[in-house]
């Protein structure tokens, strides 16, 4: 077995356990809500249309967006509950994922439930009344048993959807089989992506077959078959969940990472240093850029690395650029005052937004700076990462230089580099610490008008960890210790196509190179 696959298998018990816990809870909760809704919808045609339309409407929301929307919503609710009841809760991880998936599971159950109950023949309803059943007895002894096969078919559909959509809960901080897919996508580790897809598909198929047994049992009134299916589901859930008894206990430190290689490497590095000092550390990877800071400020995360320019623009909503030192200083005082967040210090390198082009193309067109680029932009195509064109940095350089690109396209970062090397786009939004700039023969363009803010990589500590001696002792040695060249090499060792390292290996190698281990 290749080391990659071996490493993937090693994480399977934890990922699978969370995936099963999440899907099963969402489906269970979905059933609890959907069945009464289906009964109500079948009884009263005035609420039938709104209920079915509502469930269909939820289904039209892309599942990733649905998951993402629950984070701000829960954050608001949690803040309100803290104000009113003195008790807040986690807006990240399990809860948003559970709620979004629950909503997502409802449509097939509500629809099949309503149809199933309504399709019981009028003669049988008349008989149920005639023999003296109460409406409740009619429902429980006649309508639900007769609708059971149709309802189970709906549950099967819901189960397959839920298991598939649960892979998307990784970006809101909930571990799932999606961790393979998202990490694999970022580090161009296709084995990992395939492994995640395969595991999730297999889980969905097995669940579908077991639920199919229950459905067939209900249709053919074969209790034995239904019992085998139900027992299979139950045993499967129990077996899958056993690893959580050890994995599930809250780790003492939660280290956050956004969704790119540098973040994975730095998070691994910090986690390892915390563990070296006897702490327990747990990673929350693939967090959205906006989610990460709020998660830290609310104590969901204990530590993560962000970039001064990002915080400057997105958290403090500043558009000016007073220079590298001033930004860092002001950020340190503002974040401490506003949110109680500690800026421990800069790691020593910048990961700035920089527009990059292929060397040969830049030479041919005579482009060295953003001013040159602006003059030629009418005939060029610009590629950005998924968030770039929505970020204040884009607005800033656009205003400063007045670009007029022929076309703009957004890519997941991995594919953005492919696009510029293959010539699909002429210029991309890169990061200065990205190892692929040198490896792909790209040049970064100068910013003579200083429109792009500085992007020092800074370590942020959550408010309630500000005085945690062990955490600070573990992380202080990293401050000012990492050069941009060292970071670029480490990033490239994860991003390159051959001899790829896993982030944890790259982190160890980086520690060694810097003499930090």
């Amino acid at each position, binding site marked *: 077995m290749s080391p990659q696959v071996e490493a993937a298998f090693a994480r399977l018990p934890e990922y699978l356990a969370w995936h099963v816990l999440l899907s099963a809870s969402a489906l269970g909760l979905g059933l609890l809500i959907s069945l009464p809704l289906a009964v109500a919808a079948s009884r009263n045609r005035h609420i039938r249309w709104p209920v079915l339309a509502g469930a269909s409407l939820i289904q039209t929301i892309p599942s990733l967006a649905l998951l993402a929307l629950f984070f701000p919503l829960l954050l608001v609710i949690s803040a309100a509950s803290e104000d009113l009841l003195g008790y807040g809760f986690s807006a990240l991880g399990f809860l948003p994922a559970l709620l979004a998936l629950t909503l997502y599971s409802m449509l097939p159950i509500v629809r099949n439930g309503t149809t199933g109950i309504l399709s019981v023949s009028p003669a049988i309803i*008349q008989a149920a*009344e*005639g023999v003296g059943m109460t409406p409740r007895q009619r429902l429980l002894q006649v309508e639900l048993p007769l609708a059971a096969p149709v309802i189970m078919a709906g549950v099967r559909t819901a189960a397959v959807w839920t298991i598939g959509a649960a892979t998307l809960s990784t970006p809101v901080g909930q571990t799932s089989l999606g961790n393979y897919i998202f990490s694999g996508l970022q580090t161009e580790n296709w084995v990992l992506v395939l492994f995640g897809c395969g595991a999730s598909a297999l889980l969905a198929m097995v669940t579908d077959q077991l639920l199919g047994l229950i459905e067939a049992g209900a249709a053919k009134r074969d209790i034995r078959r239904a019992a085998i299916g139900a027992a299979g589901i139950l045993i499967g859930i129990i077996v899958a969940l056993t690893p959580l008894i050890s994995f599930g206990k809250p780790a003492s430190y939660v280290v956050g990472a956004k969704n790119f290689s540098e973040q994975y490497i730095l998070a691994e590095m910090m986690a390892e240093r915390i563990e070296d000092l006897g702490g327990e550390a747990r990673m929350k990877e693939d967090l959205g850029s906006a989610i990460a800071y709020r998660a830290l400020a609310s104590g969901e995360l204990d530590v993560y690395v962000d970039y001064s320019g990002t915080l400057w623009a997105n958290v403090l909503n500043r558009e000016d650029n007073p220079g590298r030192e001033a930004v860092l200083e002001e950020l340190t005082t503002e974040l401490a005052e506003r949110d109680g967040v500690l800026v421990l210090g800069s790691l020593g390198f910048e990961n700035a937004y920089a527009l990059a082009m292929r060397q040969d193309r830049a030479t041919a067109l005579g482009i060295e700076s953003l001013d040159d680029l602006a003059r030629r932009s009418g005939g060029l195509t610009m590629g950005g990462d998924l968030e770039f064109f929505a970020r204040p940095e884009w607005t800033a350089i656009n205003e400063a230089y007045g670009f007029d690109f022929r076309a703009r396209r957004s890519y997941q970062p991995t594919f953005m580099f492919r696009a510029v090397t293959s010539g699909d786009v002429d210029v991309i939004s890169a990061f200065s610490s990205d190892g692929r700039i040198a490896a792909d023969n790209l040049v970064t363009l100068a910013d003579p008008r200083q429109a792009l803010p500085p992007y020092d990589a800074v370590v942020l500590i959550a408010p309630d960890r500000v005085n945690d001696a062990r955490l600070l002792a573990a992380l202080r040695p990293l401050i000012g210790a990492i050069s941009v060249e060292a970071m670029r090499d480490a990033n490239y060792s994860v991003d390159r196509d051959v001899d790829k390292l896993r982030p944890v290996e790259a982190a160890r190698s980086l520690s060694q190179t810097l003499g930090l281990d």
Partner: protein
Amino acid sequence: MADPRIALERITKTYGGHQALADVSLQIAAGEFVALVGASGSGKTTLLKTINGLIKPDSGEVRIEGESVGDLTPHLLRRRIGYVFQEVGLFPHLTVAENIGITPKLLGWDKARRAVRAAELLDLVALPQEMGGRFPAALSGGQQQRVGVARALAAEPHIVLMDEPFGALDPLTRDSLGDDYRALHERLNLSTVMVTHDMTEALLLADRIVVVADGRLIADGTPQALAASTEPEVAALLAAPRRQAERLRARLGETA
């Protein structure tokens, strides 16, 4: 005088402007077999359903064995009254024995007592015992309606309501089931109210025939009394069976 088993007093029922029942009064004594005859839409089924509370009249009072239906809980009332209808409505997910035992089960009879009762009823409606374990889908139409009758009788009701009970059966089955039911009616001293649009069936089975037209009772009497009626609508209803009987006699000769 003892209360009649069923007493309807000045019942009216209107559906969206259409008067289904107009000031109907009717009394049915213990042991009577009454046929409600009329064209479709005459109100005969509406009348039947007011007896077990499936339809609530707009005004008037229904009394069952002296108790006003308005004061009784509808589902408890229905457990005291057998109900048989054309579509039978056996529960497809329950066995024949479980179907027969459903009202006793709702009344809280224990399992053993229900099993004994189901076996008795299978005998009573002339079905083999082994049929008790089968599902309704495995039975013929006639057998299903026999189970329907058994289910109606399971909780030992004094009253049985029948809505076109034999309408969907072939003539032979219909005949034998009708005869068998009539025998049961006598043996158990039931009060039976049967809705039918088939005057011949009414004449053959009932002690008393009530003719319903446009929500009113236009005739009420024994078959003989009805035969003597000069009422044109009643005479028209009797014309068809008479003609059939004459034709049969002519075709089959003396033996008919």
